């Protein structure tokens, strides 16, 4: 059986993929979940409205600082209301805010009309699950060492661990060719040199540079 010969190095056709707006919808749902948790915590309606606006802005502009603002607002509210540190609302907030962070990072690279293919999400999803396992292991550790006697030891260990992690992040991201240098340019063009500029808000009708 000899079928028609196929070019050997041609990959399979790119499928349709998921619409990027559906991931923004997930982002919005996660944001609404955070709002609901904060309301359960006892946040007043006016502040709930403020957090709701931030959540909607975060879904509309994933590459904006809105997601970071939402995370900080939620953490501040949870800390301000006090109470049992390992209460259910906190345990719900942990995966929701992490999802908000990860999904905003991925979805923020493309406009809402884009198509997202499964192989793009798979590594991020695996990493998310792994981090959540570690986070809930941390919850388990916290449940075990809640005794007051263990607090100074835990404090020292926590600060040391934090210093190591912070140093790691700084070592990776900041050096003489720092990622945060605003004057760096991609070979052809990048959007205005603004931190956080991605394809998400990139103008589609841009002309190609001469000679390209």
């Amino acid at each position, binding site marked *: 059986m000899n079928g028609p010969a196929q070019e050997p190095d041609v*990959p399979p*056709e*790119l499928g349709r993929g998921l619409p990027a707006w559906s991931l923004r919808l997930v982002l919005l749902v996660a944001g609404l979940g955070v709002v609901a948790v904060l309301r359960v915590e006892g946040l007043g309606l006016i502040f709930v409205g403020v957090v709701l606006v931030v959540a909607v802005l975060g879904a509309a502009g994933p590459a*904006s*600082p809105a997601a*970071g603002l939402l*995370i900080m607002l939620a*953490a501040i509210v*949870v*800390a301000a209301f006090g109470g049992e*540190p*390992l209460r259910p609302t906190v345990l719900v907030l*942990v*995966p929701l*805010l*992490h999802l908000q962070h990860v999904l*905003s*990072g*991925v979805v*923020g690279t*493309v406009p809402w*009309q*884009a*198509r997202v*293919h499964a*192989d793009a999400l798979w*590594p*991020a999803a695996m*990493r*998310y699950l*792994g*981090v959540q396992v*570690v*986070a809930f292991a941390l*919850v388990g550790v916290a449940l075990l060492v809640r005794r007051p006697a263990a607090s100074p030891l835990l*404090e020292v260990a*926590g*600060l040391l661990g*934090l210093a190591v*992690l*912070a140093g*790691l*992040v700084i070592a*990776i991201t900041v050096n003489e060719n720092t*990622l*945060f240098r605003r004057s*760096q340019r*991609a*070979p*052809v*063009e*990048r959007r205005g040199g603004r931190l*956080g500029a*991605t*394809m998400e808000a*990139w103008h*589609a009708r841009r002309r*190609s*540079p001469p000679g*390209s």
Partner: protein
Amino acid sequence: MSGWRGTDALFRGAVCGVGLVGAGVLLHRVELILIGAPLLLATVLAVRRPAEAPSVLARPMPRTAELARQGRFVVDLRPGPDAELVALRLPRSGRVGPGVVHLVGARRAAVHTVLRWREWGDGVASRVDHLVAGPDGLVVFGPVLGAEGRRVVLPPVRPLPPGPLPPRVAGLVGAHRSARPGDGTELRAIRPFQPGDRLRRVDWRVSLRAAAANGGQLLPTTVHVRERHAEADADLVVAIDTRVDVDADLAGWSVSTPGSRLRVNGSVDVAVRAATTLAAGYLRQGDRVGLMDLARPQLGVPPAAGRRQLLRLRHQLVVCARAAGWTSRGALAAQHLPSGTLIVVLSPFLDDRVVDLAARALRRGNRVLAVNTLPGPLVADRQDRWGEAVRAIVVGEHRARLAALRATGVPTVDWNDGAEVAAVLAGLRRTAGRIGVRR
């Protein structure tokens, strides 16, 4: 690492993670540590310092494409080992303008999509813009504008309904009888012998009859020969009017189309499709076909035969359409029109100039057929209170121009699928012998 930069996600992960965990430890708030720890951990796991610049390259495609055909557009990805996401803006099948962005995994070596050409013409058909991102979109490279791939999509060749053109004959010359005497098969006249005539052309029956009438003596003056027509290729010149490009909607006549494109089913679109169809029909029979642009005579193509001429005409029609635009004086250059040529004028006939040109060509001895390419029925501008009046005036003037053409002896016809044109061409053959005969 030149070109890579951090995003808001990196800033968020680092600041929120370190800040919340640090604040939690210092304030003895476990919940802050629990919220901040995943962010910090995710950032540590995902952040990279890529060492090399990624590249995204589109494989070259043919510069010329056929309408309604499809081609495979392959893009090779070399995002580098530290990349996880590649956002590609790929061209959309059958649509003009920037395409849809696809977010794919960076492990793919290449992606391919199928492009189908749905509009003929010249333009940017493929440009791949890209952005490469590290894990979780913490660092990105780009967006980078891709190089533009220009492509010419040739106007389609539709078969003309059978009937109008002479039947195809095999041979090195065309199917049409020339006005000149020659070595063809069709009898032209019987005339007295002249020096230079071949003996085999002598018509002995007529010669003997002439001799008998002259006293029975066969003299050189009584010898008659049969004269035959030469057989030659017919010349067809398709004259298209690219000075205006209008469609049925009067409101849009004064508005240019986005990207200076032609109007779909507009007068130039119809004219080009009709020109291609007619040219293909005649060239298939071995006839000679040329092209003339009434707006820009320098873009014309002299008559010639063969498949290569059809390709040349289609390319030139794209050039004419690209240069389409108003010129006050159209021209039908006489020096480019051999006498006896059939001229098919494809125009919306929105001004008197083209009527004068057609009538003048008829007076020079050409056969002229006027094909109306004005889409109809015209739709008035509803936003304008004078819209209906304008429509009535335009329709009336247009009708008067076509009537004037018919009065001068130029048959006029609308272009639908070519059937009506075919009938008129057949009529031209009956009235003037065959197309291409000098009168």
